[in-house]
């Protein structure tokens, strides 16, 4: 059964969209990430215009991260001060990201640029995640317990403030910069950015694991909400029907995924995830590298 997506301007199978939402929902439930970095490339690969994929996915991530945030806030797993400092950078990052997005659109390069940024960012994350999980799997076999190191290289920066919930006394410069970078990528790529934000918070900012997910969700929920508004207002590329169908699939998938998680160890999941991420990178990369069927592309002049 097909449904005509009003902004994408094309009919797409409802089951396919629910399935993509469901599949990435399962993974996000297992891994505690939003899954936008898989959903957006999948939408592009099934033929949704890349800009519409990015804008609509922002609305989907906004909804699903708000739902996660509510759950974490109830359990008190959110460092509000840390979240607000991240957001100071994140908000600025979202606005900067939109400016870059619009510049690339004007230059007629936005579609390829989205794929290229995905290949570079996801490729890096996938390789790092794969190597890290392989090391962890080997440690597990050898029976070595691993503790993430807590010290950071960022001492001596100004504007130090206490983050009580995280038990840290540190400069606000690193979290503002982290929030900014994630905000830029989030807006251009149509993702929450958890796959960068969570490792950065653990390894760079030394935020304790139990508040990382809740606090990162605060940044993700607000930044994708801002990104949704900016995309809709300036690019008219947010397809609400597309976002809604993805969300329905994802909400159900996430519930199943969070139960599946107990069956696998963290490093096993990360290893599978790395494989999946690299697969998406290869598919998007091939589209960029292989000669196109027809080298001429047509765009509407507004």
């Amino acid at each position, binding site marked *: 059964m097909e449904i005509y997506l009003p902004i994408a301007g094309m009919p797409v199978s409802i089951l396919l969209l629910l399935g993509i939402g469901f599949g990435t929902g399962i993974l996000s439930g297992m891994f505690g990430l939003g899954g936008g970095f898989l959903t957006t490339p999948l939408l592009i690969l099934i033929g949704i215009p890349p800009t519409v994929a990015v804008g609509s996915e922002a609305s989907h991530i906004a909804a699903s991260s708000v739902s996660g945030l509510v759950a974490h806030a109830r359990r008190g797993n959110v460092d509000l001060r840390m979240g607000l400092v991240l957001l100071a950078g994140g908000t600025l990052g979202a606005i900067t990201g939109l400016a870059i997005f619009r510049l690339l659109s004007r230059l007629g390069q936005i579609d390829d640029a989205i794929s290229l940024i995905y290949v570079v960012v996801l490729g890096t994350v996938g390789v790092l995640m794969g190597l890290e999980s392989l090391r962890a799997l080997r440690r597990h076999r050898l029976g070595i317990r691993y503790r993430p190191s807590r010290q950071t290289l960022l001492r001596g920066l100004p504007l130090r403030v206490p983050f009580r919930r995280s038990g840290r006394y540190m400069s606000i410069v690193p979290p503002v910069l982290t929030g900014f970078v994630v905000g830029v990528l989030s807006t251009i790529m149509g993702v929450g950015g958890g796959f960068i934000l969570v490792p950065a918070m653990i390894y760079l900012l030394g935020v304790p694991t139990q508040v990382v997910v809740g606090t990162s969700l605060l940044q993700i929920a607000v930044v994708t909400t801002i990104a949704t508004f900016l995309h809709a*207002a300036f690019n008219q590329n947010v397809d609400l029907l597309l976002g809604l169908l993805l969300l329905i699939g994802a909400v159900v998938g996430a519930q199943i995924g969070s139960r599946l998680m107990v069956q696998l160890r963290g490093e096993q999941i990360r290893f599978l995830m790395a494989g999946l991420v690299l697969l998406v990178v290869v598919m998007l990369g091939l589209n960029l590298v292989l000669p196109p069927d027809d080298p001429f592309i*047509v765009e509407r002049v507004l």
Partner: protein
Amino acid sequence: MSRWRKALSLAAVLAGGAVCGANAPAQMPMLVDLANHRIHIDAAFTGADLLLFGALEQRGDVVVRVVGPPTDIAVRQKINTGGIWLNGDRVDVGTVPSFYSVAASRPLDDIASPDLRRDLELDVRYQVSADIPEAHRAGFIRNFTRRGLYTVEQVPVKIIGGRLFRVTISLPEETPPGEYWVETLLFREGTLAHRRINRLLVERVGFESFLFDLAQDRPAEYGLLAVVLALAMGVTAAEVFRRV
């Protein structure tokens, strides 16, 4: 349902045409009508068939041309830049029909001379400016042809018993909304004998149309709606699964 309506309207018009023909046989060399004067793009839209039919007073060749609303187009050539295919410089094609289809009862070559076809602009290539590089021009026409937006002589106009004719032109899934001109040309011995024009309206309807219009005309309000909906659905999902 719509097939029923099509069949009913076809029968009604054919009956009307027959009556008309009986009353005034000499004045009307050709009668033409569309089964549907409006095509709706709704949630279930995956393309549509446009059925045109008519009657001739005498034998002749029939050519049907459907022209969609004008649109401004630019073309880029993908160029291998350091191993990656990136878009090259933009070439403005100018204003072209967003949809263009020609169907004929015989091959166009046999119906009208090249000069007459050029005068009548009876091919896609006359619709596209000759001022742009030929490769870009051909690339654009190829692109629109592949998407089913430009079709020339893909389906025949069927003439039944030398008097009745019909043709079904398919509108693809990405049919642009707007006002279409459906032109029926009657040729006899290589000259244009008669011409009729029918209007066709392709329009978005329902919830899709509401969303599209809002997104285009009031983007800030649409953005607020998107944000409010996303937040509301997120909170709802959290509540629904709170105890699960």
